[in-house]
């Protein structure tokens, strides 16, 4: 039963991962899948930068370039950043609040498999006639015009993986509301848990408009509806609204957990309590709320009129206030602390100036009349990469180093980590700083080439060199991960020595039930409090050792997801689509198309009914078993040998 106590065959291990509902294993799957898609999207970015290294380059063709830029944006946001953050949320949030698992372990697994199969579906487009090519925003007139099945893959793939994200979001909200350990009041929750809660709430309200938008696009392209076809009375601006009502909060969905991760890292390595905890919480909520009020700032040039532009300009600027609060609170956290520069802390220290730079250019673009110049130029490319790479990617890399000991009972190499940081960080600024000026000098974004002698040549060359450095940085990080597999297990609690929240109170490797006894939380930074009071045991407990109730594994989430995957092919090759009728996309017979949809959805619904008809009560780990597992773990930690009594 225990994660280390049993030596399993390879097949059994694979089966274990396919059926698992354990948040720690799902976290590892999210991490692996997210890294894979991060690498793919990074490669796409490199191809684009190599194409733009010199004017009139012919490294990739115009059509391919549009596919690359679309897939780069789509993959990075939906299939890399989101799952990587989910990886840390899954791994850490239940531990931080003292829970044995998430509220709906089954749904947790379903969320992962939907995300993963949706992502795979989207990437199949590369091998089946071409990837989507209308940008990650997929504006309706162009995406309806685009021949072939690329956009169909985009619509269906995101629909499936979006459902997975939504399910995970609901799961985290309920987990954080109902599963907190005794004493863990809302105002004692670690900031990462808080930001996860707010970000999940944003998912809850932001993803349905996307779902609707994608669905309208789906029926427009594949079943002849007329939502966006202006010749039939449709209106493409509806897509822009629906997309950005989702799209803007999406940025906060990603960046808030990143803020949360830094709010965990900085206090640990400053050895000081997070400054202004309650205003940090307030700022998080405020950013989440304001995030829904500003979507039309992406549409300043669409022609919504002066009043709409004015309102959205001012609303957008106000976001700077809570964000500024956060930045100053972080700085005041290290002020008066005792700063130890480890790799996670390096990322945090690099994050602050980079993110501030990205934030201030955001305010500049909020100024609507100025945005008429900046919009859709390289300035905006520079801006959002400063926010996303400078804010989110640094958080992910830092958190990987920070939480690796808890997730894998291994540490990432510190020296290699420092080297990676510098190469990546310098490469990042080299790539994107100059792009601000390219935009101001009149270079539009999403161009596959440019004529020489427009004053853009040098900066584009430097930008590409920077991108190559970022690529080297990522390779070094992956190398570091591979090295860590071979390194010595840590077998300890509180790897960094100054851990403050509950997750550091646990000794690695963790048993599958996390806490032998539910801990009692006596204040903010509970583990720090215990350490200060000289508690050698880690925590005090809220209950005696008793039977632990755990959920059963299940293969049904995977089967349900496969069902949607099959149905998506039925819709993709629909003979009723405009492109299919025009002969610009291949299709199958009506019978086969409907047949696939019915079969796929039948599998999904069938699996749901099968799940419903059976009682799934979970199982109990009895006290004797717990003691045996704990003994095994203790022996493993002491000798490195795995026990054999199970």
């Amino acid at each position, binding site marked *: 039963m225990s994660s280390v106590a049993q030596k399993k065959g390879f097949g059994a291990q694979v089966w274990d991962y396919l059926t698992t509902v354990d948040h720690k294993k799902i976290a590892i799957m999210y991490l692996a899948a997210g890294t894979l898609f991060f690498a793919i999207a990074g490669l796409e970015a490199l191809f684009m930068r190599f194409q733009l290294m010199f004017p009139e380059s012919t490294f990739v063709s115009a059509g391919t370039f549009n596919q690359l830029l679309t897939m780069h944006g789509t993959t990075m946001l939906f299939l890399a950043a989101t799952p990587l953050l989910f990886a840390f949320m899954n791994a850490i949030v239940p531990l931080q609040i003292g829970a044995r698992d998430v509220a709906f372990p089954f749904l947790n697994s379903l969320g992962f498999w939907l995300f993963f199969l949706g992502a795979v579906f989207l990437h199949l487009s590369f091998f089946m006639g071409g990837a989507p090519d209308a940008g990650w925003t997929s504006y309706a007139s162009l995406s309806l015009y685009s021949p072939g099945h690329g956009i169909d893959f985009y619509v269906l793939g995101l629909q499936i993986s979006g459902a997975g994200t939504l399910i995970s979001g609901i799961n985290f909200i309920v987990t954080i509301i*109902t599963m907190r350990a005794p004493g863990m009041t809302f105002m004692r929750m670690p900031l990462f848990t808080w930001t996860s809660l707010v970000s999940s709430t944003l998912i*809850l309200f932001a993803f349905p408009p996307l779902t609707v938008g994608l669905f309208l696009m789906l*029926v427009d392209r594949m079943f002849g509806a007329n939502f966006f076809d202006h010749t039939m009375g449709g209106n493409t601006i509806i897509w822009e609204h*629906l997309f950005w009502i989702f799209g803007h909060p999406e940025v906060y969905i990603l960046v808030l957990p990143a803020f949360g991760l830094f709010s965990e890292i900085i206090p640990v390595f400053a050895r000081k309590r997070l400054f202004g905890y309650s205003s940090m919480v307030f700022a998080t909520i405020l950013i989440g709320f304001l995030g829904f009020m500003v979507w039309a700032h992406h549409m300043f040039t669409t022609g919504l009129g002066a009043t709409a532009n004015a309102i959205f300009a001012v609303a957008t600027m106000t976001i700077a206030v809570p964000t500024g609060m956060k930045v100053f609170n972080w700085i005041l956290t290290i002020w008066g602390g005792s700063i130890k520069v480890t790799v996670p802390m390096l990322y945090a220290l690099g994050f602050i100036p980079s993110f501030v730079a990205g934030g201030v250019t955001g305010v500049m673009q909020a100024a609507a009349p100025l945005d008429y110049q900046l919009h859709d130029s390289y300035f905006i490319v520079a801006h959002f990469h400063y926010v996303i790479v400078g804010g989110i990617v640094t958080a992910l890399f830092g958190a990987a180093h920070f939480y690796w000991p808890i997730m894998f009972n291994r540490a990432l190499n510190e020296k290699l980590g420092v080297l990676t940081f510098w190469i990546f960080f310098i490469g990042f600024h080299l790539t994107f700083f100059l792009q601000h000026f390219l935009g101001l000098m009149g270079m539009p974004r999403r161009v596959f080439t440019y004529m020489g002698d427009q004053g853009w040549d040098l900066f584009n060359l430097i930008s590409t060199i920077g991108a190559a450095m970022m690529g080297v940085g990522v390779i070094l990080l992956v190398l570091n991960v591979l090295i860590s597999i071979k390194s010595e297990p840590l077998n300890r609690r509180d790897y960094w020595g100054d851990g403050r929240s509950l997750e550091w109170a646990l000794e690695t490797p963790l048993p599958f039930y996390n806490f032998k006894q539910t801990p009692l939380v006596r204040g903010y930074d509970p583990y720090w409090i215990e350490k200060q009071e000289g508690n050698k045991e880690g925590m005090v407990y809220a209950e005696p050792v008793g039977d632990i109730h755990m959920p059963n594994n299940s293969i049904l989430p995977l089967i349900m997801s496969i069902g949607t995957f099959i149905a998506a092919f039925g819709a993709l090759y629909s003979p009723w689509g405009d492109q299919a009728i025009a002969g610009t996309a291949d299709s199958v017979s009506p019978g086969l198309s409907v047949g696939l949809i019915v079969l796929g959805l039948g599998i999904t619904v069938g699996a749901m009914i099968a799940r*419903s*008809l059976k009682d799934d*009560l979970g199982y109990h780990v009895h006290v004797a078993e717990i003691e045996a597992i704990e003994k095994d773990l203790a022996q493993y930690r002491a000798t490195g040998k795995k026990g054999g009594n199970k």
Partner: protein
Amino acid sequence: MDLNTKFTPQNWPEHAEQATMEGKNKFVGFWIFLSCEVVLFASLFATYLALKDSGPAGMDLAKYSTKALYELPLAFAMTMILLTSSLTSVYAMYHMKNFNFKGVQTWMGITVILGLCFLGLEIYEFYHYVHAGFGYRHSAFSSAFFTLVGTHGLHVIIGLVWISCLIFRNMKRGLNLYNAPKYFVASLYWHFIDVVWVFIFTVVYLMGVLG
């Protein structure tokens, strides 16, 4: 409270649906799920309102306008049926509170029958429109109408399958703390469908014909 406890009306807890951790999670989670359904329908309503008067250039407005198409008496009948089914599901929950399993099953069954009636009328209505030349591909207006009302119809179908499965699966099991939350959230879902329909009736039919 243990799942295997044998209950009588006397020791059956006041809020059976929230008596276990799983039940409580389900209860909270379902409310949260409904809030995202609200946003989903809000987006569809907004789209419908934006497109309800538009079609290809030269569309025959005398024939294909909200005023010409919709029939209020039918929509009103559908509203009444669905409202009644919401009431019957309340009866089922009332009986669940009193640990009267037969009552739960009976009233849930009546809810399903009323839901089927509603669905039948909706299919009749759609059929009628399609025959009048107002198909899904007719115009932006038709696409928006069928998508909004059809999404609601799909929710009705899901609700019917769900409640039927519940009635069927629990026939032999009786009422316990494991399936009480299941009944509860299913009935919550049914109320939600009802509320959405009230909005559809008002925004689509009433405002379409009278407005």
